[in-house]
């Protein structure tokens, strides 16, 4: 029984080497193409739950907690939210309204980098959702795996 479990775990680990990079690439694709196709920061960032749960199922809790720390994720979320507010305040600094798109002429229509502040705000919201949802998932995993 014990040997069978170990073999299943090895199969999961080897298949994770293929699936995990593809999942993370898909996540960043959805975030970066938010202004060109359906999706965006919120929708792409939630995919990080799948990444963390796959890491947990394959490698166990101790490896996951060693790879991703809750404090680092929480601080990165704060940095991303400050960056969002700073990007929104750039409109006031340029003499326009809050959240005014002052960089909109950078890049051609349809390119990956176009839309000015829309692109950067999308990226900050994506980082924010990745770190926020990831830290909540890590917290719940730590509660499940606590030793009484």
């Amino acid at each position: 029984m014990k040997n069978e479990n170990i073999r299943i775990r090895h199969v999961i680990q080897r298949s994770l080497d293929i699936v995990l990079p593809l999942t993370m690439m898909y996540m960043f694709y959805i975030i970066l193409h938010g202004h060109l196709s359906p999706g965006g920061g919120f929708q792409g960032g939630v995919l990080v739950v799948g990444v963390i749960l796959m890491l947990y199922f394959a490698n166990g809790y101790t490896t996951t907690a060693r790879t991703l720390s809750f404090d680092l994720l929480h601080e990165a979320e704060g940095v991303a939210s400050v960056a969002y507010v700073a990007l929104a305040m750039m409109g006031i600094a340029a003499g326009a309204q809050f959240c005014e798109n002052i960089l909109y002429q950078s890049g051609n229509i349809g390119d990956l980098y176009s839309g000015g502040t829309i692109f950067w705000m999308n990226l900050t919201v994506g980082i924010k959702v990745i770190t926020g949802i990831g830290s909540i998932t890590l917290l719940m995993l730590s509660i499940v795996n606590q030793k009484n």
Partner: protein
Amino acid sequence: MKKFLTFVSLAVILFAGIMAAVRMAQMPRTYEGQNATVPVVILQQSPDSYNDSTADGAAAVIVQQNLAKTHAVNDVTSVVFDFRGYDTMGEAFILITAVAGSAVILFSKKAGKGDKKDEE
């Protein structure tokens, strides 16, 4: 004194909200819905049949001037991050509140502080 200040601030917020609601009810409508003559089924089968030249109000700005104003192809993203960026900021700050709240609850449970009284 603290209670008094709380009640005063709540009353001010309530009064301002009622005044804003009355003002908004007196304003003219931005969209009458008169130009929505194409049924949804026909629109889904042939999107070219949608006549966006007769859009009025805020819809006209988003439909007709989106590419000129934002250079973003996806209209929904330009609404979420440009026209209503302030709304998205509050929406994103909900996440920090959620993380902080669940951290408070779950860390107290992890340390065994919160559930001692419940067990006994």
